[in-house]
């Protein structure tokens, strides 16, 4: 069996991935008083005001689907057994855009603008990853 690609965990992103394993959405927030923007993916500075001071904060992970696709032909053989599946860009309530899988029937895909809530998928034995499902299952 082909192993799925794993994120490369480092000093910058370790809190995010550790929180995923605890089924919590932990993202960064700019500490500059005049900015205070939420930041995802994990970075070394705020991409809006370039402050080097970022806090880790827990957020709900609720958001709306910005756009999505149904992947039939994955980029990596590790995903072959899961096709077809829904992959989406989700704009969370706090602002940032997060990419992840949508836990949905690919034959009944979501729509742009649908509300979603976080779920955590067991990606590999050692790592859960943030994903989403529809808030109201229709």
């Amino acid at each position: 069996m082909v192993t799925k690609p794993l994120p490369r965990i480092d000093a910058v992103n370790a809190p995010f991935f550790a929180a995923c394993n605890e089924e919590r959405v932990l993202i960064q927030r700019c500490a500059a008083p005049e900015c205070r923007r939420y930041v995802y993916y994990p970075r070394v500075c705020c991409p809006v005001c370039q402050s080097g001071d970022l806090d880790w904060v827990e957020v709900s992970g609720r958001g709306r689907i910005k756009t999505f696709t149904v992947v039939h032909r994955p980029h990596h053989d590790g995903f072959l057994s899961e096709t077809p599946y829904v992959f989406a860009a989700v704009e969370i309530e706090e602002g940032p855009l997060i990419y992840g899988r949508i836990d949905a029937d690919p034959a009944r895909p979501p729509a742009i603008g649908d509300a979603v809530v976080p779920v955590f998928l067991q990606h590999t034995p050692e790592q859960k990853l943030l994903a989403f499902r529809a808030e109201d299952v229709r």
Partner: protein
Amino acid sequence: MDRNPFDGVFIAGAGQTVYEKRSPKKATRLLFEASDAALRSAGLGWHEVDGLALTCFNLPPDNVTTIAEHFGIEARFLFHGVYGGASGIIGMMHAARAIRNGDAEVVLCMAADAYDVASHNETLDRFNGSVQNYMSPHGFGGANGMFALQTRLYMERHGAEREDFGRFCVALRKNAQRNPNALLRSEMTLDDYLNARPIADPLRLYDCVLPCVGGDCVVLVSERVASRLKAPLVAIRSGGELHNYPAGDPYSLTAGWSGFSGRMYERAGLGPEDMDFAQLYDDYPVMCFIQLEGLRIAEPGRAFAFVRDTDITTEGAFPINTGGGQLSAGQAGASGGMIGVYEGVVQLRGEAGERQVDCRRGLVSGYGMIAYGRGLSASAAILERVE
């Protein structure tokens, strides 16, 4: 008005390898073959080369400096592109500035790669940290998945339909049929396009470029060198680049062209209506629509209507990607950023054979460095035949 920073610099030759699905050739050899062909078309020898501008994704651990050694070139100017498919044009502009400054006189601007589907996916998986850590582990579907997201949003926001992208792809295939170097030359109908196997909805097979093996090169020279050449010359009338635009928004459906095209035309003293063709970066049809809008050939959000109403084949009113583009010639990695420049130069030199269009000026465009949800780099230039 600003001076044209590329005045007194000329494109004196262009070379291309045959595009192949498979080949034992290494990228290094493809770079050599495309460069050798470009020098021959210019009537120049290797001993005259004093600069290289190179882009190649599967070259590491080698780079433009070690290639200079491998080829035996003493170089006064070297550039290695890190802007993905925007690099070809950016490298050409850097080379032109160097020549104009007197830093070099004969610069080969080259790109090549040797890919198949699997190795292309491997490269993209590790293209940069944001893809490797925050897209690939989720099964994003590679470039196909990323541009499926862009395509769906474009369709939803502007009302484009699958048929609009299909018309574009079918026209490019017609152009490829007259290009002996193109990989995909069999006839394709709109039905073939619409019914192809799904890859990443709404994208199907013929929305996606075929990774392949190939290389392209153009040679830039100073006025002094150009004055003794017999080959037809092409001038760079203007150009531009923009990266991470607009910052923080992968879904503006603009990329960078709209941010610099006004200044690009102004510097040339020309407008979109003066262009006789466009060689767009066609990794996916949606990006061509976005380029047509950003380069002001079509109204914002209306490129699909432009393509409905305009024949873009080599026989049409506004030819686009006259050699079939990457969508039909194939995407040889980094060469995707140079194939349009090669094609534009060959057209302006009147050397395009069966696919020759009537032209004096045209647009060439580049796009690349796929990262968090989009390509980060856009480039373009206006090329003109020297009378």
